[in-house]
């Protein structure tokens, strides 16, 4: 186990990319920071720049305008980066997949390592999903 994969196990820094979403998932992700779920005790925190991040959280159905920005963000991320698609919209486009500006679910734009379904997934589910991913 090299240093990279060893240090990946602890203190993950998360970067959140919100596509065209209804904000439910965004709020549940923020909820993870609040006292009840408190992921900061694991060293996980949300960072303001993709260049500092280990994990890219993507939610929301991606519309055409967001697609370019998502690609840009992904290329800027220092590898290795784990990509997690959150919510029904992140996984498959959800209820908005038939919309006229839909640009494909996340896994058709960038490679995804984990899917956390739900509409919205509860904070417990989000934490469980990330933990499962890290243990992989």
């Amino acid at each position: 186990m090299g240093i990279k994969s060893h240090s990946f196990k602890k203190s993950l820094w998360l970067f959140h990319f919100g596509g065209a979403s209804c904000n439910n998932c965004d709020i549940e992700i923020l909820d993870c920071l609040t006292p009840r779920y408190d992921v900061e005790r694991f060293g996980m925190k949300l960072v303001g720049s993709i260049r500092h991040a280990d994990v890219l959280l993507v939610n929301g159905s991606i519309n055409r305008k967001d697609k370019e920005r998502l690609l840009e963000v992904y290329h800027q991320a220092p590898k290795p980066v784990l990509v997690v698609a959150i919510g029904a919209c992140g996984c498959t486009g959800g209820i908005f997949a038939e919309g006229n500006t839909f640009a494909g679910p996340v896994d058709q734009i960038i490679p995804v390592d984990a899917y956390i379904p739900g509409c919205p997934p509860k904070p417990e589910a989000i934490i469980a999903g990330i933990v499962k991913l890290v243990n992989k």
Partner: protein
Amino acid sequence: MNTTDIIQKIEDTLHTRIQEVEIKSTHRVSIWIDTEALLKAARVLLFELEFRFIIASAYQTKEGFEILYHFSFDPIGLIINVKVLLPEKKPEIESLCPILTAANWIEREMHELYGIFFINHPNLEKLISDGNWASGVYPYRRDHLTTESDI
């Protein structure tokens, strides 16, 4: 002021410019007016009768483009839908922006989605379509089919 007085006042101001008045209840009224009379109707509703502009919604029918301007009179909970009908070949109408800033965005949106042109609008630029679909494409029109070539 009650609904009957309000309708009377509108009829007195617009006279023959009104094509039809439909009173569904004391709270819901629809008035179909001539396209040219829009600013006059808006002025009497907004400034004399103190209505509030809710929003405008556009819709394409067989006869052309229909725009409904929704106004609300909050003290009695009355909503009046003012309807205008624009010809399909040349959908143009006066913008409400010179008398009401609140109409700015919705007119831009109707322009992008239906291709309706608003005369005297201060900045009829893209609101939501930039990057989402190309200019000249109007996705909410009946004859539009979404394709990849929209970009």
